[in-house]
């Protein structure tokens, strides 16, 4: 598979979340975290989820990534319905429909950049040599050429995020779940990485669902921004952004439409 081969792509909606609810049993009571969430993501779309801290965003991702199960509702990924019941173990093995990238990059210090990238492939049973060859093909596109044998501690924050994204992409699904991928970066690097991610998304044809705290990040990158309420999370509002926007995606330019969207979102999120 070369760098530009389109990734496997099944027909239909890649992601459909219908009326999902979830609560956790704590020592004292039952804590509802998600109530009746419905979200649809079309193929090739870039959708952002934004909501106050602790509202339940990561919990939703855990459900999508097969790490946890909803109490009710339905999740369909690439035409496959995730089960609501059954042993956690059986359930887990059916996962990996979408590739999940956690907030901190979670690169393993004991693996080189190349070996970090192939982690998902190895877990899926691909041989090391083949996995490495496939990863190498993508290094130029990710701007990582020359760093194959470096160890993560020698990379800058932005580079680390690119390795983490490469690892996610190599899992072989083009539906990506990104949980605050740039939360740990400083503002300037963050903007650079947003530009880069946007470019990659445009070129590679990925479907992206992104969690963020940052209104501006959501607005800059997404086709659609979904604002959530505080816990228990439910959908408070959805903002569609046209593309090309005013002057197209020009990273350092703040367009009128973006400004309006930001204002709307700020109001939505603050007046709780």
């Amino acid at each position, binding site marked *: 598979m070369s760098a530009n081969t389109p990734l496997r792509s099944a027909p239909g909606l890649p992601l459909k979340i219908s009326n999902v609810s979830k609560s956790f049993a704590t020592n004292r009571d039952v804590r509802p975290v998600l109530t009746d969430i419905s979200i649809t993501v079309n193929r090739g779309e870039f959708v952002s989820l934004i909501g106050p801290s602790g509202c339940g965003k990561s919990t939703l991702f855990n459900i999508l990534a*097969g790490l946890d199960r909803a109490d009710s509702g339905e999740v369909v990924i690439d035409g496959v319905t995730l089960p609501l019941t059954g042993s956690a173990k059986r359930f887990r093995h059916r*996962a*990996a429909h979408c590739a999940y990238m956690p907030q*901190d990059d979670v690169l393993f210090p004991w693996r080189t950049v190349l070996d970090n990238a192939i*982690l998902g492939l190895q*877990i*899926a049973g691909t041989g090391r040599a083949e996995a490495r060859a496939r990863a190498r093909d993508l290094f130029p596109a990710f701007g990582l050429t020359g760093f194959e044998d470096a160890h993560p501690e020698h990379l800058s924050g932005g580079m680390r995020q690119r390795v983490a994204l490469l690892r996610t992409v190599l899992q072989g699904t083009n539906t990506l779940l990104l949980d605050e991928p740039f939360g740990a970066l400083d503002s300037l690097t963050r903007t650079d990485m947003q530009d880069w991610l946007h470019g990659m998304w445009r070129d590679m044809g990925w479907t992206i669902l992104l969690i963020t705290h940052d209104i501006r990040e959501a607005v800059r990158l997404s086709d659609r921004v979904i604002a959530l309420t505080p816990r228990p999370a439910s959908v408070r509002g959805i903002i569609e952004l046209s593309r090309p926007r005013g002057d197209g995606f020009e990273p350092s330019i703040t367009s009128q439409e973006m400004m309006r969207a930001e204002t709307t979102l700020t109001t939505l999120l603050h007046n709780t």
Partner: protein
Amino acid sequence: MDISRAVRTVRRLLPAILLGVLLLVGWELYVRISGVRPQILPAPSRVFAQGIAHSSDLWRHASATLQVTLIGCSLTLIVSWLIATAVDFIPWFRLSVTPFLVASQTIPIVAIAPLMIIWFGFGTLPKVLVIILVTFFPITLGLIEGFLTTSPTATALLTSMGASRWQIFYRLRVPQAMPRFFTSLRIGVTYAVVGAIFAEYVGARAGLGLYMSAQKNSFRTDLVLAAVALTALMSVALFLFTYLVQRIVAPWTVVTGKDTRG
């Protein structure tokens, strides 16, 4: 580059070396001035000279001790990896094992070592058991805690990739546990030597512990102290050896001394 590193190392060690020399000189002077008899407190020069004079005996016994220590450590490693792995896979097992690990440290070996000989004869077994008793706790606990340092996010990542519990264990938890493991291994090997001496003290065919006990009975305080010094040297050597092993087995855990501030 390498020379400047050596210079730095020496400079770091200098205060300790100076303090050590000072203590030795003070001790020597005290002995010479007070005229205390060597059976009671021999001068360090005498300990050294007699140690050299009896070096072949000392080496013979030291090698016996070293052998037992290494066997004991190897067994401890096997057992503690087994237990720690079991604990990592079966959480309630942890609750039942940890109190026993802690309790094992509260058992006075002085009292148990002679019983070990009654129970298991005077071969290698009782000595190895004493060593295990002494080293098992820090190493197993270090491993268990090492496994627990694994971040939930990393586990979630692997799980989302469809990894089995076993894959998560050996691809993530084991490497993650390495720094703690080596820290506790260092503590473990130090205690192992002391434990071996201990076991030999109460019953053995050979070993520094036996030697110390025999020399004590022959009023040779100087040779007892020579054996003590040799024991300390052995412990320190094993201690440093673990760094070497760590550099080979888990190089990423070794701080390279590189300036990380950019």
